[in-house]
């Protein structure tokens, strides 16, 4: 068997994280959690992850957007696929006027609304990991 994929969840709601993590754990992913963007960014710098699951509304506002911008600026991280999981679709569109419903933060990202059905979650996670793999092989 290949090594399990390592995922990082960054979300400030521990109960929501528990619900997501439980689903990912049943699919044999190795998941780590950070409950704020600062710890999340530190975790990303500390070791390699295959995918980031990122909440948008954290702390005092859209701190997830700031974290996504930091990731985009970081050459070591910008190829990390990001699954944005948020409760506020319209407000994101508002933050990025002129863009379609789904704003692209990094080359590989997807957007899901909370709550996420398990099948949809696993499907998106799988698809993003595969897309990242394909990009790596091309490069």
């Amino acid at each position, binding site marked *: 068997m290949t090594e399990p994929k390592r995922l990082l969840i960054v979300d400030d709601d521990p*109960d929501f994280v528990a619900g997501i993590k*439980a*689903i990912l754990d*049943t699919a044999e992913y190795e998941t780590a959690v950070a409950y704020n963007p600062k710890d999340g960014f530190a975790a990303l710098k500390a070791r390699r992850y295959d995918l980031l699951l990122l909440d948008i509304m954290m702390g005092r506002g859209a701190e997830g957007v700031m974290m996504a911008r930091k990731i985009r600026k970081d050459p070591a991280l910008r190829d990390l696929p990001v699954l944005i999981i948020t*409760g*506020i679709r319209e407000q994101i569109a508002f933050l990025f006027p002129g863009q379609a419903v789904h704003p692209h933060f990094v080359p590989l990202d997807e957007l899901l609304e909370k*709550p996420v059905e*398990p099948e949809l979650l696993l499907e998106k996670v799988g698809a993003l990991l595969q897309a990242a793999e394909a990009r790596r092989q091309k490069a």
Partner: protein
Amino acid sequence: MMDTARILVIDDEEIVLDSCVEILRGDTYQVATAGDGQRGLELMREFRPDLVVVDLKMPGISGFEVLERVRTADPTVVTIVITGYATVSSAVEAMKRGAYDFLPKPFTPDEFRLIIRRAVEKRSLVLETIALRRERELLREHFAAIVSHELTAPLAAVQQNLFALERELAPAATEDQRSRLVRIKTRVAVLLQLIDTWRRGVSIDIDAIKSQCAAVSLRVPIEKAVESVLVHATRKAVEVVTAVPDPAPLVWGDQGTLAEALVNVIGNAVKYSRVGGRVDVTAEPLDGEVRIAVADAGVGIAPEDLPLIFDAFYTAQPGAAGERGSGLGLAVSRRIVEAHGGSITVRSTPGKGSTFVITLPALRDDGPGGPRHGAEPLAASAKEGRR
């Protein structure tokens, strides 16, 4: 209370300036003085006073004019006039023009201190009122977003754990336990949907729509709307087929709210479609208008319900899969469409399906003057909307 009130005294008599500074020494005020109106107005900008005390009778710019210009520069600054020749009439005139109080020369230190203290209190109240008003505005603007986030976040966490628990417990759960889990999930989902619709309903602001209007190709809001109902449609195996001519018709409108209006109508079509059904979304230009038709072959609407479906909080009989609406969606759509100077109508045959038609004024492609054609009906409809 303010920490340190800044007081500007404008008087051509140096002795008055000196005594004012002297009287207020030791209090927690910052005092600046000016010997004429010109210098006073300069200091108004540099010193940013809370209070301006001005002599009415000065050479150069008159006290009245200084008063006027202070008011224009910052109407929240509290002004006091000094009336040299002890005429009540000029003091009254100054107060009519917005001065807070007057001080007849000669005045005692106590009189001066008292008037200054009252004026500083007045200034504090003015500032406090402004701050509170701003806070209230901010709250009103963001109320819907704040409330819906506060309500949605915990519900989303509950639902996420129900999803997870259902998977974890599935192998061991009895039929009854499984069905109860499904029912709780449904209840939470309905609640989440209700909050979302409510938020969208209250955040429809006709003035905001008008200010955001631009030339919009209908392809964009239609595609956005279809994208957002796709998950639901796929689950019900309902096919959503769009037919938009190329190039797509242009309208003068707000892309976001137009998509919103369409989401409600197309979402409804999916909701009341039978499993495996089909929803057709077509757009076509017609006599200076654009018609968007959303047709389903679903359960249809009873004739007696037809006149009511665009009213807020009216909900139809449960849909094919027992689905119910919040009763806000179509009311929101109508408000948005009418804010764009358009209309929304419906034809329906019970058991056969319904067709909703949204008609919007087309944007005529005649150069920079184009948008004006669209903007006019918009203004007319806003009036209608308030009836």
